[in-house]
């Protein structure tokens, strides 16, 4: 960003040049704060037109619904920052979401203690998700397969694996101690919202304050240069895909917990696209080298708000998809224009 800040303002100022500069400044402003503007205008629209929008419930409702998307999108932001992409997140959600109930319902092996069962149900699926992420990273770094192809493997196979675990059957359950992650409250705040906040803070800290954060951006910006300057580029990438896998695993377990049921065919479907959309609308370039963590959060909020706005005002779901697409196009167009200044 700093390179952009200094570039155009020092050129000589003829009248034509100045007019261009004004346009450029607007573009740059929109590129940077466009998402925020859209968010603000959506809020304003809702306050004026949507019935019962100004209520405490609206906030909790939207926060709980957006939580899983944000959690997954944090991993996606990191992956995209390294110049990759992770299409497997939805399937990894299905795997973690299918495993957890299998464990506490004693379907795999009988576990003597109930507390132990729930504890294992909360941890083992994350381990499986981490393994999925590691596998993605392994394919990408060891065999130099392009990320979109490498993660396509688990995108396709992952859901099949989840369905094999559950024999393609819907598993229903009632297990309050496990479902705490999706239905519980701490000091009046839904647990999944707390999880989301923690994940966002941790990601933001990782990118801004740690050496690993700098390494991620360096690898995404110019992998060869990063390698030559002594960064273990392959190691960084593998770690990031593991993180993305684990975050998807958390999201999968939350979805399952909220719904009292795990449907391997449905959990996390289209989540990869929601997460990528949030990243794109949030202003992170898909070419890598940048990570706009808070932008991604804002992007997810915008997409969420669009959906509830249209729903609450009686616009059919199909139209919501079109609006979503239009927003993505606008965001990407603005960024590419702002980039060329």
């Amino acid at each position: 960003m700093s390179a952009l800040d200094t570039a155009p303002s020092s050129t000589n100022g003829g009248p034509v040049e100045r007019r261009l500069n004004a346009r450029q400044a607007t573009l740059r402003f929109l590129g940077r704060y466009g998402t925020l503007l859209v968010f603000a205008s959506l809020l304003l629209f809702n306050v004026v037109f949507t019935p019962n929008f100004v209520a405490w419930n609206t906030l909790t409702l939207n926060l709980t619904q957006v939580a899983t998307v944000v959690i997954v999108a944090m991993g996606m932001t990191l992956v995209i920052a390294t110049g990759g992409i992770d299409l497997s997140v939805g399937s990894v959600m299905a795997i973690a979401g299918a495993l957890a109930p299998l464990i506490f319902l004693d379907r795999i092996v009988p576990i003597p203690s109930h507390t132990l069962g729930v504890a294992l149900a909360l941890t083992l699926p994350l381990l499986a998700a981490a393994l999925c992420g590691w596998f993605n990273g392994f394919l990408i770094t060891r065999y130099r397969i392009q990320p979109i192809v490498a993660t396509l493997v688990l995108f396709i196979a992952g859901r099949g694996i989840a369905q094999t675990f559950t024999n393609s059957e819907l598993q229903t359950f009632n297990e309050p101690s496990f479902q705490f992650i999706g239905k519980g409250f701490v000091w009046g705040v839904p647990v999944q919202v707390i999880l989301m906040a923690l994940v966002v803070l941790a990601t933001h800290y990782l990118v801004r304050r740690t050496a690993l954060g700098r390494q991620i951006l360096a690898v995404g910006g110019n992998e060869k240069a990063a390698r030559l300057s002594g960064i273990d580029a392959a190691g960084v990438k593998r770690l990031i895909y593991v993180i993305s896998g684990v975050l998807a695993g958390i999201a999968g377990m939350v979805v399952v917990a909220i719904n009292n049921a795990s449907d391997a065919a449905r959990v996390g479907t289209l989540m990869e696209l929601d997460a990528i959309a949030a990243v794109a609308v949030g202003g992170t370039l898909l070419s890598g080298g940048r990570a706009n963590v808070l932008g991604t959060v804002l992007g997810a909020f915008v997409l969420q708000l669009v959906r509830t706005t249209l729903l609450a005002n009686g616009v059919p779901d199909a139209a919501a998809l079109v609006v979503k697409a239009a927003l993505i196009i606008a965001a990407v167009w603005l960024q590419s224009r702002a980039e060329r200044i």
Partner: protein
Amino acid sequence: MSHFTRRAFMAAAGAVAAISISASAGFAQSPKLVQKDTYKVGFAQTESNNPWRIAQTKSMQDEAAKLGYQLVYTDAAGSAAKQVADVNSMIAQGVDLIFLAPREEKPLIPAVMAAKAAGIPVILLDRNVDPSLAKPGEDYVTFIGSDFVDEGKRVAEWLQENKQGGAKIIELEGTTGSSPANDRKKGFDEALKEGYTVVASQSGDFARDKGRQVAEALLQAHPDADVIYAHNDEMAMGAISALEAAGKTPGKDVWVLSIDGGKEAVQAVVDGKIAAVVECNPRFGPKAFETMARYAKGEQIEPWVKNTDKFYDPKNAKDEVASAY
């Protein structure tokens, strides 16, 4: 040289195709079924990722086993293309009759026509094919299934009998454009009398998670709604989660109504969380094989063999929950 032979092959293949098409156009009636002691029957299932489909498959398998028939079972796993291929492989295996649960209205027409051309009668289960492209009695024997319009109507009538003084209703529709969603909406909406209004109606895609999210958003926009009508059990269960998250008591603050009548939903009626649910009967086995026997005897089969659906409300749910699928 190879050019010529390929062309000759194409011409020959074209001629064969033309002959077989004109031959199949020759008989206007659907192929006959001879009376035998035992049959080899095909059942082309569309998918099996939900309790309803599993119950349907089991019912077909059980009935075939009871009669001592051989059942060739395929699962298209949600793909119309695979289902067409499944039917073709059944034709190749020389089954006597095919039960087909068509995934979609148009894409399965070639499968129906191929069976007809091969002289194998087809009976459609639970979903129909496009009536302008294939006709009962001509291209296939009949369609066996529930009356989705009537299911919606029964829900509306029960509501108006049991909840006096009007209601504000949130409707969770099924997958946009699917026949159960269209018909369940039509039956319900048209049976509503004055004072019973649908304040919001949106698609929840027949899925629990989507149904929950849509219900949450609609409840927020319409806090005065006191009834949620879901087109299937999954969305009804999602709506219950949404109500509980919003601090409302399902069954007291808001009545939940559903269609399908799986075990989980009937248990929810017992627990007071769902007010009433119309069954969409998945037990096709007895009726399917009975219709086949009638056809073999040469009886005239009506174009639509209707399944009878049960109705569960607090009066009978406790006794019926064990027999729900």
